[in-house]
């Protein structure tokens, strides 16, 4: 009981500390509610902050709600007959329902357009960033686990002596650490991994197992576990994620095209970062969002065409636009 009272105290303080929302200077959109319904019954407003003035011309006390499906977007209660109430609210583009007095009255339609007027960019709130960051961590943990598993499989496959299978298993394990790249930016752990797996691959393909192959395998496994531990103990904020994505792209662009790097997997790792933040970007900067989609399409095409020059150009282009995401999302 005392805990819920404490929660209530905190909430009361939160109510009191609510940032005071002053009335917008813009002319209010007047909605008159009569005994029969809303007048007008359909309203179109541009997205962003909208001021409504609700006038109760019915003979009953009423509340006025803006609904999105069943969810209450905003409302005013206790509007007595003859009273006016103001409601300032921020609306995203879409179609909403207005309640219009009595339950039996027809509901009104509120259309919020995205293009009318300067659609204010919606910067993500701090709480909006929790989801993508948490989901990214889940992704990293799962990739790191697969890497460790892959490293284990690799040694058993090697002992079986099946060359083709060994090369494929190594490539699969490599794709997992390449996807982790944005999380480790330019750190040496990944570079060491690239060298190590490059060396392993050369030996496997040549079929000339050197005496220190077992040692290399052990290092590979140990390295995989070290990455797994680092992933488990770190937290990546959206700002870190974007920074890592940028570093990864630039590094890929500057690397020797002959380097034993799984570029496709590394780009997938970057794509994951952008994908997780995409819903927020779409609201904050729609143009940049479309640009990034085009960049990814170009990069995929270049990678599939195995054209190093085009790949490098696409990587640089993508890196430049990824860098714009940080300010666009207000993460500086």
């Amino acid at each position, binding site marked *: *009981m005392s805990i819920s009272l404490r929660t209530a105290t905190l909430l009361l303080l939160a109510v009191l500390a609510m940032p005071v929302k002053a009335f917008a200077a813009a002319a209010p959109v007047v909605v008159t509610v009569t005994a029969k319904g809303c007048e007008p019954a359909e309203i179109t407003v541009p997205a962003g902050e909208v001021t409504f003035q609700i006038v109760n011309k019915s003979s009953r006390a009423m509340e006025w709600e803006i609904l999105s499906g069943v969810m209450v977007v905003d409302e005013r209660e206790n509007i007595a007959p003859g009273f006016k109430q103001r409601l300032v609210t921020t609306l995203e583009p879409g179609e909403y329902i207005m309640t219009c007095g009595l339950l039996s009255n027809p509901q009104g339609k509120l259309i919020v357009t995205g293009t009318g007027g300067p659609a204010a960019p919606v910067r993500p709130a701090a709480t909006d960033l929790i989801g993508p960051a948490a989901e990214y961590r889940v992704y990293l943990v799962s990739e790191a686990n697969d890497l460790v598993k892959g490293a284990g499989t690799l040694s058993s496959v090697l002992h079986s002596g099946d060359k083709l299978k060994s090369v494929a298993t190594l490539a699969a394990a490599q794709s997992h650490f390449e996807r982790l790249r944005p999380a480790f930016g330019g750190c040496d752990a990944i570079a060491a991994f690239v060298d190590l797996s490059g060396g392993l691959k050369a030996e496997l393909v040549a079929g000339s197992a050197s005496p220190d192959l077992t040692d290399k395998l052990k290092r590979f496994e140990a390295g995989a576990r070290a990455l797994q531990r680092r992933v488990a103990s770190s937290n990546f904020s959206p700002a870190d994620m974007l920074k890592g994505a940028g570093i990864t792209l630039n590094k890929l662009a500057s690397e020797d095209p002959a380097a034993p790097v799984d570029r496709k997997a590394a780009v997938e790792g970057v794509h994951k970062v952008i994908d997780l933040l995409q819903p927020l970007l779409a609201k904050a900067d729609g143009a940049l969002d479309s640009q990034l989609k085009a960049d990814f399409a170009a990069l995929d095409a270049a990678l599939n065409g195995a054209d190093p020059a085009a790949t490098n150009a696409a990587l640089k282009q993508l890196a430049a636009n990824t860098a714009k995401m940080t300010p666009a999302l207000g993460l500086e």
Partner: protein
Amino acid sequence: MLVPFLIMLREGIEAALIVGIIAAYLKQIGHQSAMPKVWAGVVLAVVLCAVVGVALEFANAEFPQKAQELFEAVVGLAAVGILTGMVFWMKRVARSIKATLHGSIDAAIAEGSGAALIGMAFFAVAREGLESVVFLIATFQQDVGIEAPIGAALGLAVAIVIGAAITYGGARINLSRFFRWTGIFILFVAAGLLAGAVRSLHEAGLWNGLQKIAFDLGPVLPADGVLGTLLTGIFGYQEAPTIGEVLAYLIFLLPALVLFVAPARAIPPVREVRQ
């Protein structure tokens, strides 16, 4: 004039009822010493709400409706817990009602639960207060004639009278009768609070399940009529509740009533202690 009167009456009753029940309960268990603190809590809540309401008005600011709904939901849930706990605690001790009762309750009522009751009175008033102040200011400010503020003020006054009647009436009736009938009454009140909390959580944007309207009694018993207002203020009546609200109401109320009416078996009857 009637509508502002009824709006304020409803908001007022919602607060006065909980405070009245707590006050009557404290008196019944011989814990009058806590009463000044209860009143202090009530006055503090009123002053706080008045200050914030006026400040919002001066800042020409928006009433934070969604935060208010969340606040109402949390306080409502706390009240459900406290009222239910009170009812069942009374049921247990009423078995040993004799001369020793008051002394034993005095000892039993820990500092903690006393503080919870005082806090509850404060929050019950704060819960309705801010919305009431904002509405009251609106009645003065809007060009709707002198009747509106008079009606609103009268509504508030009647609510206070009702709260006082509950406090003094509840304190006067015989203890075992108090426990039996008021126990049932309070369980109905608590069920209404619970359904109201479900509604507030929806209006705060947090709960969106089971939103189909279960039934619409609006044409028969409008919630903003005189009887509807009294029922809303006391029992949390809604003219068109959602299925979720009805379910919360019944799932709480039915087992609670059965448990309350059923003879207590878990605790052996306490023998009277002769001195």
